């Protein structure tokens, strides 16, 4: 086989707590990111993503502590995004135990931040996030502040620029679809994925397993990110792998992992 399609659960974290909690498994504390990370590690998630949605200066220490405690018990790649504005922010997360850092709003204002981090710490640790809304047929604009604030920046051009500046992969989220459970914006994902040589992670809108399949099949993504379908226990990571495998894509073998 070849490199597997990655299935990546994403946890929104605010002030050290997972925002919506999870209920796919009995946890002593369903809001503790470390407990949840352990559960996803055991469930065979290919990677895990923490998105810090507070990202205030005060909450930074809390986040670093969570990352550090997660890295002690989880042996899968961990991406941490939210509030990364400087090379030092990125370095602090990597030293705490993150494998990759997500860069979003700050790179809208100053795309060179991606190059700065890539040059110091390597492209492999830079996940450049693009949050976009469709503004016309075949045209998307970058939105910040959780999709509320337009930026007048063309999303596809921005994504290509971040790839050129040295991002290791792109996390492309449709803010139109985020939270809807209607499926990824496949045109957006594919338009970007077809024009870059780095992997693209599809994000925003997953409600069913066939949405994950479509993300790869029609969106040409290398990885699929989802939140609520996993957290609410609607589907497991193994279900996601099975659906992708059935559609003919390479996925990990859960039998082997036990």
């Amino acid at each position: 086989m070849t490199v597997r399609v990655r299935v990546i659960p994403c946890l929104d974290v605010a002030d050290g707590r997972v925002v919506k909690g999870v209920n796919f498994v009995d946890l002593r504390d369903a809001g503790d990111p470390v407990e949840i990370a352990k559960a996803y590690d055991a469930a065979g998630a290919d990677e895990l993503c923490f998105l810090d949605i507070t990202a205030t200066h005060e909450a930074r220490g809390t986040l670093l502590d969570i990352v550090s405690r997660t890295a002690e018990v989880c042996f899968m790649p961990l991406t941490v995004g939210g509030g990364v504005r400087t090379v030092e922010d990125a370095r602090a997360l990597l030293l705490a135990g993150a494998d990759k850092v997500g860069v979003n709003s700050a790179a809208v204002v100053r795309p060179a931040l991606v190059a700065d981090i890539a040059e110091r710490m390597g492209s492999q640790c830079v996940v450049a996030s693009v949050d976009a809304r469709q503004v016309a047929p075949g045209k998307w604009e970058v939105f910040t502040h959780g999709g509320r604030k337009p930026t007048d920046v063309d999303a596809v051009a921005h994504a290509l620029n971040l790839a050129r500046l040295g991002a290791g992969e792109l996390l492309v989220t449709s803010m139109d679809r985020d939270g809807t459970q209607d499926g990824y914006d496949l045109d957006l994902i594919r338009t970007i994925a077809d024009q870059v040589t780095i992997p693209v992670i599809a994000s925003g809108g997953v409600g069913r397993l066939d949405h994950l399949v479509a993300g790869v099949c029609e969106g040409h993504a290398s990885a699929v990110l989802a939140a609520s379908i996993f957290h609410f226990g609607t589907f497991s990571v193994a279900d996601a792998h099975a659906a992708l495998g059935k559609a003919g894509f390479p996925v990990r073998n859960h039998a082997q992992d036990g």
Partner: protein
Amino acid sequence: MGNGSIALIDYSAGNLQSVRNALKTAGAENVVVTARAEDVLAADRIVLPGVGAFAHCMGALSALPGMVEALNEATGTKARPFLGICVGMQLMAEAGEEHGVTPGLSWIKGRVRALRPAGPATKIPHMGWNDVLPTAPHPLIETGEAYFLHSFAFEGADVLANTDHAGPVVAAIGVGNRIGVQFHPEKSQKYGLAFLERFLEWTP
């Protein structure tokens, strides 16, 4: 007695915490994170992690006083078990071709070259879980799935395992008491921890 002391080399080019956590979980009793040559000479086992670019990593390793000589002695005449991870494996080669040609530790004949995309569908970096397919019998290398993350790959002798990314890509190399893996055992869940357990028990 157990598995003795492990020198985990800190040359500001590795995901040290992750490797240290994984070694401890795999049963390592005494992991010494160190940038000092004397610690490497005193250790029972040596682990060289590494992320980033070959030239930067080799430069950082060479900048530690006496470190390259200590590595040569500890893994040469002293024959201590050595594990290189990712760029730590690549440094075992004669040279790397990332940002110009940089000489490596030259323990194994071969060079580290850029992965070439076979087409637009082949993404670089090679990122994610992929096969470890043994090409030669070795007590540490078992068939399985591990996590890879790299844009450059080793091409040369003493290959122990391959993976596949639009063609064979070297996944492990080694001779005698030295082994290097392109994948990240510290990020490869059960497969990775089992690999590290075998390394800790390895008596080459």
